[in-house]
């Protein structure tokens, strides 16, 4: 191995960088190549007319020296990223209509029906509410176990208004942080908006018949999941 004394040199006299690398390192692309521009112009001009004035200009242009100076700070031109945020990939086992076991939150252990994937990548699920008390809600696929059991939900219509926006929380009232709030004044129980109740009914009515047709299936959805002694979830089939 040859000891290089100079950082920019591979061995004395041989540059580490190629011509084009040096060009980009020095930021020369920021310097307008006047000669080239002029040449381009003049060739165009020469094509259009061959007057002596143009010849003069051409001579000037060709003999003009490019500026010795270039900006001290070579501004880094960031690359344009062509990456786009893709749709969240769902696990293979997650298909619309499959029964899921919720693993986190208030409804953990409940078995619910997966309806569709929302734009945010979250899963839209329903209990159905009438069967096990789980309303239409969004869940992250990381917090569910997908079972192989399927409910036929072909032909089910979910209105467009049930999207991510639909599930956003309403802004808190102005009472927050005040004495009244602390002592529970004005903390009336939040009522479910009537339109959400109606939406729930509409979605559920479409699948509930298929579920109640199988007595076992409806009581399966009613029951909640739990592990018993000796059961290891990673060794079990769902």
């Amino acid at each position, binding site marked *: 191995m040859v000891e290089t004394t100079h950082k920019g040199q591979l061995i004395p006299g041989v540059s580490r960088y190629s011509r084009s690398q040096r060009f980009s390192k020095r930021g020369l692309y920021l310097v307008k190549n006047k000669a080239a521009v002029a040449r381009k112009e003049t060739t165009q001009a020469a094509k259009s007319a061959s007057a002596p004035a143009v010849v003069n200009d051409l001579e000037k242009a060709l003999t003009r020296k490019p500026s010795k100076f270039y900006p001290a700070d070579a501004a880094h031109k960031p690359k344009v990223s062509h990456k786009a945020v893709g749709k969240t990939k769902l696990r293979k086992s997650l298909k619309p209509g499959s029964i899921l076991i919720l693993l986190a939150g208030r409804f953990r252990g409940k078995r619910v029906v997966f309806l569709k994937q929302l734009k945010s990548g979250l899963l839209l699920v329903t209990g159905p509410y009438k069967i096990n008390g789980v309303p239409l809600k969004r869940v992250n696929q990381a917090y569910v176990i997908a079972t192989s059991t399927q409910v036929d939900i072909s032909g089910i219509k979910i209105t467009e208004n049930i999207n991510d926006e639909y599930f956003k929380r309403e802004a808190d009232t102005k009472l927050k942080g005040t004495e009244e709030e602390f002592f529970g004044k004005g903390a009336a129980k939040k009522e479910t908006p009537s339109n959400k109740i109606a939406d729930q009914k509409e979605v559920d009515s479409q699948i509930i018949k298929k579920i109640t047709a199988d007595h076992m*299936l409806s009581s399966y959805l009613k029951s909640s999941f739990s592990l018993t002694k000796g059961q290891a979830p990673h060794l079990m089939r769902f």
Partner: protein
Amino acid sequence: MTAFKRLVEVGRVVLLTHGHKAGRTAVIVDIVDHNRVIVDGPTNGVHRHVASLSKVTLTDIVMKKLPRTIGTTALKKAIITQKIDEQWNQTAWAKKIATRVTRASLTDFDRFKVMRLKKQQRYIVKRQMAALKKTSSA
């Protein structure tokens, strides 16, 4: 009377307990030494190989009149004519293994159904028992 009922002998059916063929049966065709035997199980997809006795379990089944180092094809014929696999499947041991396998393959919904059906079974049995007790005591 010998103290042991199951001996390491040519023709003895063994159950493989280790490796990816665990749970299948094979037949001892030769004895290598105190710890190892040659086993072959042509009807169960167990190729002829030397198996350590610590990795197989002896069963009660012994093949009749099996010569030492019988070839795979002849062994296959003998297993079929002596109905060794059927004999094995009839044993409680084999049935227990089979149940274990089916139980492990059940889905969540299947497990739920089993639970419900067992509950129903218990209910019927308990009711009958109670009725019988009543009649016997009366």
